[in-house]
């Protein structure tokens, strides 16, 4: 019951006219960001972060998290109408969403996508409301070794759930850690990896990296593909919405499954993208219409959208309770909290009750606002997409440059943005994943200090990471995740051998 009271208090914090206005502004900006190529959730929030420095932290997080919900909603619009996923997590939505648009059922597909996004988010927020305080109070007992093992688990999960070459995943991740180490060492005060450049004294700022890697890199990729938008028009009127809503309850089983997959993949840092693919795959296997998937099945839109939105929402749970973000966008939000002077982690629930419960309340309200905005304004957003690329591309570069500059009012960052853009382009093409790199850059310092403190406690003995059942099982899980590609390959070979004999 304590949670309900706290939540009601949160609603009173979030429901001021100013905050509600920021909510709608955030959602609208978010959908635009989600719709435009080259502007995604992570770098959209990164670019807009400096604008919030003068707001109160609660208003700021409400607006920024609403941008995030908006981007999650927006990805579906381009997938269905243009067969171009606006965001990586809406790739799976194109499989059935675009065929539906080709058959003139774009309105139905969009209503289905938005509604299931909403359902996914709602379930994840409900879980968040009741699980987050528990996780936080549990995590209050964590010492440095426990925190380091959670970091370890986070990063090893990237190897375990990633589809690419595990060595490239680890290389990208370690590169992020190396970049995080640049600058003044927080413990000894020594300069590290600056090679005599005073500009590197304060290190690489992850916001600049995010803007370059995801923003400029994405523009380079879009240019290469020679994007030309030719899409279907969508008419959404109350009649279509109601008719689709009548059909949706039929897919309750798919919805529940997708919610579970999404929440799980969001908490462990798999993220929204793998969650949407996994959910689509499972739905195709289990559904009795599975063989028709890919030809324009509403169920094929419901499954990935529910999971993506549930994962995107629950990625905030480890971010708020442990200070460990589950996705690049959550990492950017975490960076925002640090800038506003809030230390994410279990203590946040004790010391900043207004902030935490205001945020949770805004998750409920933001998603309702989001559903209203997207259902009523689809034609407008589709019109934005028809703005030709030769106009959009330089405008986005300009926005990115402004964003990179405002991080520290430093010209070097704008140059770094271009460098990161080229790196992002190369890495995308060569299958080096960007998400673990960004997360490592954000968490590098905290992970390192947790590691050093643990080493101090144990006087250099690695055994400290197995010293009690909690830290031992976390480290054990991390190691399983790290070697999962090897384990699953061996299991597969064993199974094959067993079948042969």
């Amino acid at each position: 019951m304590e949670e309900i009271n706290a939540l009601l208090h949160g609603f009173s914090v979030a429901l001021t006219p100013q905050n509600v206005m920021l909510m709608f502004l955030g959602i609208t900006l978010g959908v635009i960001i989600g719709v435009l190529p080259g502007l995604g959730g992570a770098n959209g929030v990164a670019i807009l972060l400096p604008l919030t420095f003068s707001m109160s932290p609660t208003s700021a997080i409400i607006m920024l998290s609403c941008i995030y919900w908006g981007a999650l909603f927006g990805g579906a619009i381009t997938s269905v109408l243009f067969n171009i996923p606006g965001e990586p997590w809406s790739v799976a939505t194109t499989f059935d969403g675009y065929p539906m648009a080709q058959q003139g059922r774009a309105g139905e597909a969009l209503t289905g996508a938005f509604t299931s996004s909403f359902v996914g988010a709602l379930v994840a927020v409900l879980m968040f409301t009741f699980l987050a305080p528990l996780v936080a109070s549990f995590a209050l007992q964590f010492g440095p070794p426990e925190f380091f093992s959670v970091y370890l688990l986070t990063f090893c999960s990237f190897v375990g759930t990633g589809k690419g070459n595990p060595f490239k995943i680890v290389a990208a991740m370690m590169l992020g850690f190396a970049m995080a180490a640049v600058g003044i060492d927080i413990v000894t005060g020594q300069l590290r990896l600056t090679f005599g450049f005073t500009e590197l004294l304060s290190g690489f700022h992850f916001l600049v990296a995010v803007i370059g890697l995801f923003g400029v890199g994405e523009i380079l990729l879009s240019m290469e593909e020679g994007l030309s938008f030719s899409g279907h028009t969508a008419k959404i009127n109350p009649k279509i919405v109601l008719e689709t809503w009548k059909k949706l309850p039929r897919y309750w089983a798919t919805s529940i499954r997708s919610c579970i997959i999404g929440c799980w993949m969001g908490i462990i840092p798999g993220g929204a993208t793998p969650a949407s693919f996994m959910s689509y795959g499972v739905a195709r296997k289990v559904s009795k219409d599975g063989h028709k998937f890919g030809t324009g099945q509403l169920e094929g839109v419901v499954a990935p959208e529910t999971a993506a939105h549930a994962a995107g929402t629950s990625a905030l749970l480890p971010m708020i309770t442990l200070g460990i973000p589950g996705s690049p966008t959550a990492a950017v939000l975490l960076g925002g909290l640090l800038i506003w002077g809030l230390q994410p982690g279990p203590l946040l629930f004790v010391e900043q009750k207004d902030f935490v419960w205001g945020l949770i309340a805004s998750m409920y309200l933001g998603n309702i606002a989001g559903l209203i905005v997207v259902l009523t304004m689809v034609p407008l957003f589709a019109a934005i997409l028809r703005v030709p690329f030769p106009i959009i591309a330089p405008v986005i570069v300009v926005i990115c440059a402004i964003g990179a500059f405002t991080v520290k009012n430093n010209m070097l960052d704008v140059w770094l943005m271009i460098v990161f853009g080229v790196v992002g382009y190369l890495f995308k093409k060569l299958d080096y994943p960007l998400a673990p790199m960004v997360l490592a850059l954000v968490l590098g310092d905290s992970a390192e200090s947790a590691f050093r403190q643990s080493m101090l406690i144990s006087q250099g003995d690695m055994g400290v990471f197995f010293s009690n059942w909690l830290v031992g099982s976390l480290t054990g899980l991390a190691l399983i995740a790290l070697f999962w590609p090897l384990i699953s390959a061996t299991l597969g070979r064993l199974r094959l051998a067993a079948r042969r004999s």
Partner: protein
Amino acid sequence: MRSVPVDLVVAAIIFFLGALVVWESHQLGSSWGSDGPQAGYFPFYIGSFICVCCIVVFVQALMQLKSDRKVFVTAGQLKKVMVILLPSTAYVLGIQLIGIYVPSALFIGLFMRFVGKYGWLRSAVVGGAVSIISFVLFEIWFKIPLPKGPLERLFGF
């Protein structure tokens, strides 16, 4: 351009960066000092991991050098990428020299004119509008100063 040679080059570059991290960490002291781990203790391992992973990636790519014919980027695609990358770099240089607002307007306007083949008038209007809107938004509304040059000084900013 084929994909595998690019893979080899990138792996070699990252290996070099990793080796740099290892070397620098060693210089700082990567072992156990009188009061605990030294500054290079953690980065030393990070650098080592980078090196090991890149060697593996390099060898993997080397083994595919003959067999894998996947194309990294065609000449036409590379040209398209350069069409945005080179002007963007020039734009950043422009920001460095004369502030952000004039280069923004020029960048958007010229890009529309020469890449998008729009008329001069429309290009100038869009470029100018984006610049003026961002000026009002940042300098006046949010009071966030962006780089300014001679033109802005002329108007007293």
